[in-house]
């Protein structure tokens, strides 16, 4: 066991920190889940790319730095420590890209990855349907073979930032006689293709961060298939490993919130000069759970660096960070007293945290996965 960083990792951290200090926009950008905010975020994403900070762990040929997983963690820690903007490109970079690296043809990798890194193409995820949320295998959107490709028909919903993105990666049923996990195929679809209709709608926080996407005989080429016809489920599951595990939620995010929370608690003094002891206890609990997440992640990355594949323990990860995020924001709002109702960063953060146990597979589904695949309990 060695919990110290190497000289090279420390140098990487110093480089990231000084660049971020000099470049993070001040004041903070408006929400990236509104059309005006999204445009500002795109400028930031392109600035990151030009300085090779947009995809640090990717190979240099695609715009990255070939950074190790350790350095990726360090970058994330510094990124959130610096209060840098949310990543509006994250669904492409963190969810689709790992799948393209694993299942894409060389042609697909060349065509997709550099433009994704540069925020030229903006990807959203098209999995959920009105009738297929937690029960993802209940997908009914279909793809029918046509000359030179496929015609897509159906509807996707709750597509994050769908109204602002240029492309969608999604699951469609290619075998009309199939049910459940079989007969699905993973497609990469340009949203400007004829027959696509995107309708944005508001989330709980009022931002137009969601969209419905309708497909009415949308024709795509053979090259729009990622990972083989009929292989969609296993290809998609490779992406969920990323979404629930490391790549979407690095410990640095929560450590940064904890720092703000401790600061808030110190300023939320009663006449005796200290916060309510019960709330102080909740603050420390939040610090501890964030530390536990950081250490659990170091353990997981050690295993991955040693060649292990991400497994069902990523379900525990997802439950932990999503419930931690709510706890941190609830504690902050409790410290705020009746100022909690203000539509400010804490309330916005609280509203967003409430989506954590729902998206990327509800925590109920994650508990089923953990119980069945980690503990070996029988399927219902």
């Amino acid at each position, binding site marked *: 066991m060695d919990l110290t960083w190497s000289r090279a990792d420390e140098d990487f951290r110093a480089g990231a920190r000084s660049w971020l200090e000099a470049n993070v926009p001040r004041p903070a950008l408006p929400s990236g889940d509104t059309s005006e905010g999204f445009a500002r975020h795109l400028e930031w994403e392109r600035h990151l790319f030009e300085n090779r900070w947009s995809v640090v762990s990717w190979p240099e040929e695609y715009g990255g730095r070939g950074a190790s997983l350790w350095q990726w963690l360090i970058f994330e820690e510094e990124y959130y420590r610096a209060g840098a903007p949310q990543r509006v490109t994250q669904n492409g970079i963190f969810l689709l890209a790992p799948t393209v690296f694993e299942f894409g043809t060389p042609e697909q990798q060349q065509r997709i990855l550099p433009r994704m890194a540069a925020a030229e193409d903006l990807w959203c995820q098209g999995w959920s349907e009105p009738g297929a949320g937690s029960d993802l295998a209940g997908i009914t959107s279909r793809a029918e073979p046509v000359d030179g490709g496929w015609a897509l028909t159906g509807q996707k919903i709750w597509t994050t930032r769908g109204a602002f993105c240029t492309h969608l990666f999604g699951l469609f049923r290619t075998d009309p006689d199939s049910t459940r996990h079989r007969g699905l195929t993973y497609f990469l679809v340009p949203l400007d293709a004829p027959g696509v209709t995107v309708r944005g709608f508001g989330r709980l926080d009022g931002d137009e961060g969601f969209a419905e996407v309708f497909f009415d005989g949308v024709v795509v080429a053979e090259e729009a298939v990622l990972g083989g016809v009929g292989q969609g489920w296993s290809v998609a599951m490779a992406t969920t490993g990323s979404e629930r595990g490391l790549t979407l939620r690095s410990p640095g995010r929560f450590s940064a919130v904890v720092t703000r929370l401790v600061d808030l608690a110190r300023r939320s003094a009663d006449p005796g000069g200290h916060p309510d002891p019960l709330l102080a*206890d909740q603050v420390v609990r939040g610090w501890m759970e964030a530390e*536990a997440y950081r250490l659990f992640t170091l*353990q997981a990355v050690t295993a991955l660096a040693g060649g292990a594949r991400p497994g069902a323990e990523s379900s525990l990860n997802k439950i932990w960070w999503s419930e931690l995020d709510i706890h941190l924001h609830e504690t902050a709002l409790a410290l705020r007293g009746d100022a909690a109702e203000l539509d400010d960063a804490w309330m916005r953060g609280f509203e967003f945290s409430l989506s954590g146990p729902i998206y990327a597979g509800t925590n109920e589904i994650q*508990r*089923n996965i953990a119980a069945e695949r980690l*503990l*070996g309990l029988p399927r*219902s």
Partner: protein
Amino acid sequence: MFFGFDEDQIAVKEAVGALLDKRAGLTVLQQAWSDPAGPAAWAVWPDLADMGVQGLLAPESAGGSDLGWVTMTLVLSEAGRVALPLPLAETAAIGVPLLVSAGDPAGVLGSLVAGRAVVTVASGIGEADSGERPRAPAASRADWFVLGDRLYGRDDVVLRPVASVDATRDLAEVEALGEGLVVGSPLEFGALAAAAVLVGLGRALVSTTVDYVKDRHQFGVPVGSFQAVKHQLADAAMHVEFAAPAVWAAAWEMDQRGGDVGNIGEVARSVSLAKALASDAAERAARTALQCHGAMGYTDDYHLHLWLKRVWCLSPAFGSARWHRRRVGVDMGLHG
């Protein structure tokens, strides 16, 4: 950065685990319940010494191996797994390192490492009634008693047996008669050692309950196929598995400080993190285990209660979760 164990650490853990399975299994634990100071309960003590367990934190000059806290906590989690009814944490992970750092003033280190002498520790943190005397486990068999920051011989203490919810504890109130020898506070070592044992207890509670709910049928199916059961167990497993790395990390930090009590303040936050998470996780695992066992677990002829009661003893020992959160909160400037 490498958050894992080396081959030697894993080998020691597995060897001790195999010894405990063979020589300190359920039958021995049940014998300890009725006779905690008896020969059956203590038979494995010299075997542990032969394997070097009591000397993991002692220098080679005292017959130890100096393998350090990471190995020590791995071994203690094995002791927790089998609910070992002996003061291994008190002797090997508190008494030995305290005496090492104090320069072995009583000249007993060699006998501890060799398994010929036993140390116990009277804690007494967070008492509701400060008039209560500190209590120590294994009181009938201990040769040395750590009380406050001092060490006393058996002839320098008065013992009054008191009943613990866990009869294997062999608990007694301890009153010191003489001055004793200053050896330093057992708090950090005790909290980290207890956290390691609690991780082992928690893991055992989850795994034994998983086995039970796979086997137990109601409504024609295993009760473990019900989501209401699955979700509780997933939560229990999650909390234990997120506590474990905090224990290993605190152990690693302790090793970086060379176990020097003078510098222990620097690792206090990490120790509190480990103990708070481990106490809460083990308590959750205990509640979940009992609930998922149904009425079967609520009997004293089924063995589950032995693990539950050990958790109830060790969760508050050397500071409860709340006590350790408060200590960190004071350090953060959040409490007066």
